[in-house]
């Protein structure tokens, strides 16, 4: 397929999926609609995460910070301004925080970057908890002005579609190529004339904008928010897990994995939350060890490759267990002595 055909295919798939999601609340039960809402939230979060962090290999754990900032902004301003401006404001404040944070940490790579973004998220969470406790004198906030359920669903759907569409489009622009170049070799990208500082900051801000908007839209769903729920590091972890397990470099991987995971989470978490989290941990370890490219990198020969590895391991072990190795060692020794 040519690049143009690919673009058309991707856009058509997105169009079809969006239409299906649009129709879902009309015929599904209320439970199904709320399930779909969670799916859409993670689709938006993990697609936008993969857009920057997947391609440039900057492992950011700050998603929950942007999500929480968006949620708090939404909660604070919703009784004063309209719905859509409130969401835009949430995204804008998240972008502002991302630009400041990015200026401080985006020159660090690898583990330093991951740990620092995690630390900053926790710092923001504790700062807001402290501020709420000592200045406003509350632990959480009750949202009194709440829009209709339908509006929330449509908004989150819109954000998710926008996130996927942005990653379709960004891949074929100079900006997307620059991000991929940074991921492959940052110094070489710099030598070839990419303004890496600007590109990284813009990419980080783009991720933050989506996370902030999703946060602002989702805050009304809970009707009561406190720092512990909206800055929950688990939101960030799950986003990263979804993107990594599915393959952060692919377009549709995060989307499919987000749907699978949120369905799993919603069904298993109610019955056996610990088992769900244990399974998540195990899955993460297994996918990093055996599928470093993610679920989307599975091809027909992946299983064949595992089978070949297993057979090689088995024949090697059989040789050792049947005394072959010991015999070789003995003969080597005898030859040396002779």
């Amino acid at each position, binding site marked *: 397929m040519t690049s143009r055909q690919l673009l058309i295919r991707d856009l058509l798939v997105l169009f079809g999926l969006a239409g299906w999601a649009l129709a879902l609340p009309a015929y599904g039960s209320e439970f199904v609609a709320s399930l779909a809402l969670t799916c859409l939230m993670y689709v938006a979060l993990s697609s936008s995460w993969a857009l920057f962090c997947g391609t440039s*290999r900057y*492992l950011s754990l700050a998603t929950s910070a942007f999500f929480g900032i968006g949620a708090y902004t939404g909660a604070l301003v919703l009784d004063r301004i309209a719905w859509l401006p409130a969401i835009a404001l949430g995204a804008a404040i998240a972008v502002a925080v991302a630009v400041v944070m990015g200026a*401080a*940490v985006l020159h*660090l*790579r*690898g*583990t*330093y970057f*991951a*740990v*620092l973004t995690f*630390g*900053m998220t*926790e*710092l923001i969470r*504790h*700062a807001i*908890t*402290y501020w709420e*406790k*000592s200045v406003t004198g509350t632990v959480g906030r009750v949202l009194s002005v709440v829009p209709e359920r339908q509006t929330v669903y449509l908004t989150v759907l819109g954000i998710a579609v926008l996130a996927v569409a942005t990653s379709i489009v960004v891949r074929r622009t100079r900006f997307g190529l620059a991000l991929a170049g940074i991921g492959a070799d940052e110094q070489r990208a710099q030598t070839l004339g990419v303004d890496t500082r600007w590109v990284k900051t813009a990419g980080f801000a783009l991720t933050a904008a989506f996370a902030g908007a999703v946060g602002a839209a989702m805050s009304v769903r809970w009707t009561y928010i406190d720092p512990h729920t909206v800055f929950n590091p688990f939101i960030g*972890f799950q986003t990263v*897990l979804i993107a*990594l397990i599915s393959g952060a470099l692919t377009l549709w991987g995060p989307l499919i994995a987000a749907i699978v995971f949120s369905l799993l989470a919603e069904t298993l978490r109610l019955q056996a*939350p*610990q*088992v769900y*989290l*244990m399974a*998540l*941990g*195990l*899955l*993460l*370890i297994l996918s*990093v*060890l055996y599928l*470093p490219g993610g679920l989307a990198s599975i091809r027909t020969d992946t299983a064949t490759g595992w089978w070949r590895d297993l057979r090689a391991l088995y024949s090697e072990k059989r040789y050792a267990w049947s005394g072959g190795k010991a015999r070789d060692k003995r003969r080597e020794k005898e030859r040396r002595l002779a």
Partner: protein
Amino acid sequence: MSFGAWTELIASGLITGGIYALVALGLNLQYGLMRILNIAHGEFLMVGAYLTWMVQTSFGLHPLVMVPVSFVLLAALGLAIHWLCFRRLTATSPNLDVFEARGLMVAFGLMFLVQNAVSWLWGGDLRGYDFLTDPVKFGGAQFAGNKLLVFALALLFAGALIVLLRLTLYGKGVRALMQSPVGAQLVGIDTKRLHPAMFGLGLGLSGVAGCLLSMAYTISPAMGEPYTVTALIVITLGGFGSMGGALAGGLLLGVVEAIGMHYTNPSLKALLSYAVFIGVLLLRPKGLFSK
């Protein structure tokens, strides 16, 4: 403030600092030697604490007996984890950067796995037992007996590790690997034996720390994560890979926290340590004591 109150404040800081140092030494061994940023380190501390609590309450065994036992059990667990996960990761990663990122992800998986396994097995309640709760008097200051014991043992283990690394041939090998992995391998240091051993030793130390903690504090499945974060802060304070730096950094952080909390407000504790962490990472990423 009277002299006695000052001593109590500083001593309480030093006591928590001793535990911080012990946890941080294990993490530092793993990160400095193998570049495994084991974010699940604190969870193994929690496992050590739960083991001690379980044995103490159901069999009535003396907690001090559990110190070597939990060291051995956790070290064996560490060997198993290294054999199952990190051996393959080292073999398949194309370079050190990729290994670090993947190792971090595996450690996140371990964190989810261990923390939830414990809360599934033993439930999420706070647990604890009484051990040596009589106060001990020194001059004008009063200390809880168990906390003093915890401090002494933590210092003992931390000191023993540092002395071992200084004096024995194995320790020399470890320090050589930290300085230059390629050079050390060229002169015949066997990474295939040293890496699992040091990973196990690190987990064993966190098991000891957990065992000691359970003597003086209540325990819960979520207790591990703050200690992981603190250990990260301590090794950034002391410099990655520096053992003496980790010990000094741990004690320092304990005292800073105690004094800071006394003058401001206990709910600022987490805020304070994260601020110190980010400040040090941004301003002096090589550690406070580096030249």
